[in-house]
């Protein structure tokens, strides 16, 4: 029994991991090329393809349905491009139109299929909401069979796709067929999305394209690192989500995977070195402290230069001199700790020789 459970889990985790890797890798390009929501449109638009493939072939063999999905997703992408290029409709509205109309047509076909007495649509419903728990070994093999060529193609055309993402104009000037490369890369994205549909469903597949890439982007400025990280995040979220959903009662896998990847995004947004919000905050605080030290040192130096008799100045004077912002007291204590200023009497302050040297070295040249 335990073995059976483990086996199912292995299959599901393998499927979710595959989906994460493929969608993560291709998603990195989609996010960089501002096509994050194209994934949303493609996944919704795959529905009529799935249903049509079922109607035409009469089976629920995963390969046929996936090919149908890929074809419809592909047609949807072309429709989005055509609408956005050849009319005054903007890209966002083109996505909305294609997404909703294709999905509506899919629904129309789906209800038509449901009427047939022998055709239970259970296999088709899976595409709508995903059903990781129902993944079979053959499904996972199909996913890998589709996903691997996608990754290989990505590796082979790496340099070209990099140009496409960052400087298509330069690529064109080198004589590369940028239009065709665009079509190929988008085609790979379609396949990547189709691979994941059965596991997380139409609605949530877009998250698997956007989220791992958005998380990976925070950790690096290098495309190669980003793509690998993104695939890794996708796989991690897929596997962890699948495991949680199989261990906890009534935790549907698709949403659990998406929530896992969302956690990864939040962690990245806050903690990623350099770009992360937390580090930005720390940096801002340090910069403010540095500015305060500078202001007080400068004020002391300035007062000293004007009086020339080496007498101490009160904190209040420093505040007035503009060094105060937010209280000069704390900064003076800091200067005292560093041995740059010393306290005379209750609240009068004087630069130490070390402090004077420091201030002159830092700011003296400016006067």
């Amino acid at each position, binding site marked *: 029994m335990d073995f059976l459970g483990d086996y199912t889990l292995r299959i599901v985790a393998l499927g979710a991991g595959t989906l994460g890797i493929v969608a993560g890798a291709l998603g990195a390009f989609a996010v960089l090329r501002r096509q994050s929501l194209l994934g949303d449109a493609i996944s919704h638009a795959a529905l009529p393809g799935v249903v049509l493939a079922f109607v035409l072939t009469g089976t629920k063999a995963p390969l046929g349905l996936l090919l149908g999905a890929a074809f419809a997703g592909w047609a949807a992408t072309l429709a989005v491009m055509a609408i956005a290029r050849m009319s005054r409709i903007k890209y966002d509205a083109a996505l909305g*139109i294609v*997404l909703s109309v294709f999905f509506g047509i899919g*629904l129309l076909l789906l209800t038509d299929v449901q009427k047939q007495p022998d055709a239970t649509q259970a296999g088709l419903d899976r595409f709508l909401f995903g059903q990781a728990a129902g993944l079979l070994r053959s499904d996972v093999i199909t996913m890998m069979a589709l996903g691997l060529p996608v990754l290989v193609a990505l590796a082979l055309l790496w340099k070209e796709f990099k140009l496409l993402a960052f400087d298509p104009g330069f690529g064109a000037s080198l004589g590369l067929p940028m239009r065709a490369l665009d079509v190929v890369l988008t085609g790979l994205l379609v396949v990547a999305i189709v691979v994941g549909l059965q596991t997380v469903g139409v609605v949530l597949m877009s*998250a698997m394209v956007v*989220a791992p890439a*958005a998380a990976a982007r925070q950790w690096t400025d290098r495309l190669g690192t980003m793509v690998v990280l993104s695939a890794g995040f996708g796989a991690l979220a897929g596997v962890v989500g699948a495991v949680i959903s199989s261990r906890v009662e*009534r935790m*549907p896998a698709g949403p659990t995977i998406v929530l896992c990847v969302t956690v990864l995004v939040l962690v990245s947004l806050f903690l990623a070195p350099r770009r992360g919000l937390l580090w930005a905050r720390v940096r801002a605080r340090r910069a403010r402290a540095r500015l305060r030290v500078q202001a007080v040192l400068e004020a002391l130096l300035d007062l000293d230069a004007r009086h020339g008799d080496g007498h101490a100045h009160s904190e209040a004077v420093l505040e007035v001199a503009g060094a105060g912002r937010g209280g000069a007291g704390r900064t003076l204590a800091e200067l005292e700790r560093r041995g740059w200023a010393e306290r005379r009497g209750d609240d009068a302050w004087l630069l130490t020789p070390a402090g004077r040297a420091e201030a002159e070295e830092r700011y003296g040249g400016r006067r």
Partner: protein
Amino acid sequence: MTGVQLEIQAIAAVTAAACALPGAFLVLRRLSLLSDAIGHSILLGIVLAFLVVQELTSPFLVVGAALVGLLTVVAVELVRGTGLVREDAAIGLVFPALFSLGVVLVARYTDSVHLDTDAVLLGELAFTPFDRLVAGGWDLGPRALWVMSVILAVNLVALLLFYKELKLTTFDPALALALGLAPGLVHYGLMTLVSVTAVGAFTAVGAILVVALMIVPPATAYLLTDRLGVLLGASVGIGVASAIGGYWLAHALDASIAGSMAATAGALFALAFLFAPGRGLVAAARRRARQRWEFPQTMLAIHLLNHEGLPEAAVENRIDHLDAHLGWEPAFAREVVERAQRRGLVRSDGAALELTDRGRAGARSSLARTA
């Protein structure tokens, strides 16, 4: 037509009209996909409100859902505001997360008999007439019809009251800001309308097809007009036509009404995309074809004008000379001259060509334009 059929069509039409009004502004402001995001994330609002009040018909569900719809917009703003991800990615991050949370809550804490994810996503218009609004023993009609009518009225009133503000913030936000119109406030006001409308509509058509009703009719209307007032009217008209047409398509195919409404709206959009006067693909192709012949005719007229009344005119202004002077194949030259004659620009006397008054005026004005 039975009473139920009539009621379904009325609900569909009112829903489409209510969606088209705020939808038009989403399309114009390039925020179309926020309708998709809001449509999905309201599931979370409905579930949260349901968990509190434990009742599916409570108005609190609508309030909760609309609040989460707004929260979606705020969250997208926040994520985008960090500068760490772009706007499209921000939308793509926020709504799947909220939707997932909603689905998990449904699975864990509610009895799926009461609250069905399918129903939220897909809606079922055919069942709406059976949920009646009954007051004091009187049957007042389907609840959905009342809800959507109220929402339509709210949208209309808001539109009439804030027409100027909406128009200016949509087309010239900088000027609107300078005039003190608070574009931010207008933005969130509009988003509130979108949320409330989406919440009302999802019971009828489902969250995904709310997008179809909000975006497709206004986009279709946008291909047909340049005036905001006309655009709004046409959006409502196209939306209602999609709703009624979709109903009968579904009736004929015995299929999902919401799906056929979206398909009909898509078909109307495709028609406009192809045949819209001036902007459709066909009109554009014809314009290009016309322009291909217009330019040589202008050249011909200018050529004739150049030599007109001069000694060399007898040599230059002949159809058989165009080959030498303009490099035109004889067949092409004949076609150009023929077209120019048909338009009354040129007279011919055997092989000799002469400008008409109209042709002369046209050539002069073309020259003036290039000078």
